[in-house]
């Protein structure tokens, strides 16, 4: 874990926070040797996660925060995003690729997280809110 990098942020429930989180993890990934495609995938997966927390979890409520933790080591890039919303059950999310759901305007965020990260865990916090943990295992510099 010689090149481990860790980051903890408390983000406002705003669109600017989504952009900031994306830029920060992309930079973190770049600094730790991930290639361009991997940086893009990490940024996009994190963007979707923080966007869900800000939009659906905290409903843009400025009194609520989004906790953001990122850690990189030789084995993986790991991100945990926690909101203060009402929470949701992942199994209740309709498959956005199924039938009429294809023409829905929302509901693709979780699918995109799963497409870009190797592990996606969605859970309830002890109090209130949702915690999403993303892990991307990949050889740095690999295509």
């Amino acid at each position, binding site marked *: 874990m010689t090149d481990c990098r860790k980051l903890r942020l408390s983000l406002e429930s705003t669109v600017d926070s989504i952009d900031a989180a994306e830029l920060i993890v992309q930079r973190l990934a770049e600094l730790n040797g991930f290639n361009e495609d991997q940086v*893009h995938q990490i940024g996009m997966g994190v*963007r979707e996660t923080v*966007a869900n927390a800000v939009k659906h979890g905290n409903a843009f409520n400025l009194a609520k925060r989004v906790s953001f933790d990122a850690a990189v080591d030789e084995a993986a890039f790991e991100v945990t995003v926690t909101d203060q919303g009402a929470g949701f059950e992942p199994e209740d999310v309709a498959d956005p690729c199924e039938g009429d759901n294809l023409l829905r305007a929302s509901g693709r965020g979780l699918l995109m997280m799963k*497409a870009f990260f190797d592990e996606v865990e969605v859970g309830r916090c002890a109090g209130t809110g949702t915690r999403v943990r993303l892990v991307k295992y990949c050889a740095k510099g690999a295509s």
Partner: protein
Amino acid sequence: MSLSTEVREYSGVTIVDMTGRITLGEESGHVRDTVRGLLDGGATKIVLNLAGVTYIDSSGLGELVSAYTTSRNQGCEIKLLNVQAKVQDLLQITKLHTVFHCLTDETEAVTSF
């Protein structure tokens, strides 16, 4: 990078040249407002030229889907032109490639209606 759009007409088809990102916030709103304006103006054939769009998030995709369904409900057809590789990947992941007619040649796009 915010989203900019330029609208032009070519052989009865409305072409919207887009440059930038289509993401949650003002950019998605810009797409919505642009398409609504075109529909209000009577457009029936729209090509969204995404040559300058290298990044779309799930909200941006949702906005494109809304544009598609809203247009279809009003008798207008929307097609996509010059979808960039990373955006094309997203269309595959979300299976939206089965919804949108994507083309790579402007003349072909215009004559495809």
